[in-house]
């Protein structure tokens, strides 16, 4: 690792630890583009072909396009390993994180289609306005609500109580679920699965005392009752959260409360 590069351009095979011999292959990406600043205001499809390696993800291919072919291609991304929730997009018709979708799993024989997530206003290329999504999130009071004096130590919680809401603590607010929901696509007023998931995280936390208020908020006509259990959200969630299950648990909690 101490070798001195002669020319800084040198890609050095011995310092690039690669796993086994990875074959390279060509992939074509068919990307839905939209530029708000050109007249016409129309979205259009554009195809790019790049060379990829065995462990490359869709995000790598998109970076290649942005860095080598067309710098104006615009998308959000940060962590590049599925934990920041920036790059939810529609890949071959389904919502996924570009940084978690391996090219080799996507049948590179056909062009891979990439579109912005549905149901949120598109700002540019794959960037959508996330504000309506976060507005719904904020509305369900996504914070611990307690009464009485703060304890001087931690609040106790058994491992079982902790386990009860574990699944929904994993949410990274990527919006893959909400923008996969056919009900959300219709008029965008539905709270959406992500907001419900985050309400669930508190409703079933033994330390929380705001459950009733949250249930009331989600009892709204744009709340849980709009869910038609289509499971698109569960399939789309990159964190493997059983989203529909969480929604159903919230519905059942409301029914129990009402009768």
């Amino acid at each position, binding site marked *: *690792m*101490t*070798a*001195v*590069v002669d020319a*800084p351009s040198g*890609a050095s095979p*011995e*310092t*690039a*630890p*690669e*796993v*086994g*011999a990875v074959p390279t292959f060509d992939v074509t990406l068919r990307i839905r583009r939209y*530029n708000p*600043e050109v007249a016409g205001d129309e979205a259009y499809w554009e195809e790019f072909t790049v060379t990829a390696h065995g*462990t490359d*993800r869709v995000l790598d291919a998109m970076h290649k396009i*942005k*860095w*080598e072919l067309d*710098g*104006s291609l*615009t*998308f*959000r991304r*940060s*962590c*590049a390993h*599925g*934990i*920041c*929730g*920036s790059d939810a997009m529609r890949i071959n018709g389904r919502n996924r994180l570009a940084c*978690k979708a391996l090219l080799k799993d996507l049948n590179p024989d056909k062009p891979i289609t990439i579109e912005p997530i549905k149901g949120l206003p598109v*700002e*540019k*290329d794959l*960037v959508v306005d*996330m504000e309506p999504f976060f507005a719904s999130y904020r509305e369900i*009071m*996504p*914070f*611990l609500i307690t009464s009485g004096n703060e304890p001087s*130590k*931690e*609040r*106790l919680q*058994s*491992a079982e*109580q*902790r386990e009860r809401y*574990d699944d929904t*603590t*994993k949410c*990274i*607010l990527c919006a893959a679920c909400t923008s996969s929901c056919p009900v959300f696509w219709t008029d965008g007023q539905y709270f959406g699965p992500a907001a419900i998931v985050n309400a669930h995280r*508190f409703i079933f*936390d033994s330390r929380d005392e705001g459950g009733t208020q949250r249930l009331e908020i989600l009892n709204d006509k744009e709340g849980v009752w709009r869910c038609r259990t289509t499971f698109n959200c569960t399939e789309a969630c990159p964190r493997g959260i059983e989203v529909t299950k969480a929604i159903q648990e919230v519905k059942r909690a409301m029914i129990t409360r009402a009768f």
Partner: protein
Amino acid sequence: MQTHQYDVVIVGAGGAGMRAALESSGRVRTAVISKLYPTRSHTGAAQGGMCAALANVEEDNWEWHTFDTVKGGDYLVDQDAAEIMAKEAIEAVLDLERMGLPFNRTPEGKIDQRRFGGHTRNHGEAAVRRSCYAADRTGHMILQTLYQQCVKQDVSFFNEFYVLDVLLSSDLSTGEVADGEPVAVSGVVAYELATGEIHLFRAKSVVFATGGAGKIYKTTSNAHTLTGDGMALALRRGIPLEDMEFFQFHPTGLAGLGILLSEAARGEGGILRNGDGERFMERYAPTIKDLAPRDIVARSMANEVREGRGAGPNKDYVLLDLTHLEPAHIDAKLPDITEFARTYLGIEPYTEPVPVYPTAHYAMGGIPTNINTEVLRNNTDVVQGLYAAGEVACVSVHGSNRLGTNSLLDINVFGKRAGIAAAAYAATVDWAELPEDPAAYVVGEIERMRDQPVGERVSDLRRELQESMDLNAQVFRTQESLTQALADIKHLKKRYGSVSVQDKGRRYNTDLLEALELGFLLELAEVVVVGALAREESRGGHFREDFPTRDDERFMMHTMAYQRPSSTAGETEIRLDHKPVIMTRYQPMERKY
């Protein structure tokens, strides 16, 4: 241009920024500016835990924690700061729990704790369970919990705003402002990604919490967006950077990718093996073996590979073996990182060892601050109203090597302190004078970049920088390799002058921002390399093969790097100075594990 006025402006909405915001927004009018949506910040990537001597599962106390921190940092730690951090750790963890953070629990329902590298009982006797955790998503939970509290407090966020300049009452960059003269902050200039508009934020206090700079390297656990913006902005405005040559390489990045597998994997019993299947850490750190501090483990791994005992077809990585652990245990404690191995390498960690190699992880150095998080402009004077906390800052609790779990602690303890201090200061002072034409610099930079019709491509320059840094300034360094790196950087900086972007639009011009971020990376890389060249010793994360031992005689001191105009007009150079290390209880000893 739009102008805003806030008592406190916090730059960065990661753990440190939001922790500060929670304190500050309750006291004075506060805005948080972040180039990412808060929940996209890289604090969310942190996995293993946050340590505090809660003694929930075994005997422990903050004094041992302080010692471990000092020793882990190879005695370059400012011990007053480390003491504060270890003491306030306990309240910091409890604060988070009371905000709702879902920690894993002990059978009694208390916060569970586990082992982590370098954390020991009674000054090194044996590994201690000090790290509080939530599976392997502790950072995610911290980030979410802090954001939740910010929603509760209705904190004002300016999301996807890039801060590109910090405004000071005098120009420090020439080095002509005398020591002792008062210098105050008056605001920041930001670029709104959505519209391309420039915003001026006038403020009494500014808190920098912009995180790390891992993207100066190619193989890194850091996000694409961790380009050291805050450090570089301070540097450009004449504020020094401290100890930048100390960069932590985390032992267990997924080979070839750099994606992190937390130390918790070893805390839970994982073992490192070389190509022959040998548990080689027994040779390098006989007492705590795989749980030795990161610099030692990373170096040992690199050494195994260098001496031909690597695994894999090219013998260029080692293996992290979890196969002896119960799958149920792995699922309960390490669900995310095992999924990384499955998703990205197609490896099943239940049955196969995972290929790993050191990955650039954490900047120990940063903007120098005192224990009240006030930014220092030299060894003693602070910039009034300017604060820094988190990875961007260097209070020097990490010295030359940060212990695992001490950073999530750092951002909470010093984030909180920064929020309180910034609000308190803002409450007592008047608005500082704004410089004339405050946005001129930023507007000029942007226009220059956008108007360049053709030129160098950002991605080429960035790749060359990252490759040179990986090759020449990584785990092992020599005078020769560092000189090469410096030459490369100088050359790249020249070429940066003619860089051009393809996207000429205003809206969501990420092309333009990548170009600006490259500028930050180049300047920071230069500071790292210049500091590393000057430090002719090996200490913590900085290992010079030509000077393989620690040299307290010459180098028991912090590096202070200043960017100053060079003799060639229009160019700058790095000038180095030093700052003494603060020692209170512990005298330097040889560091053995």
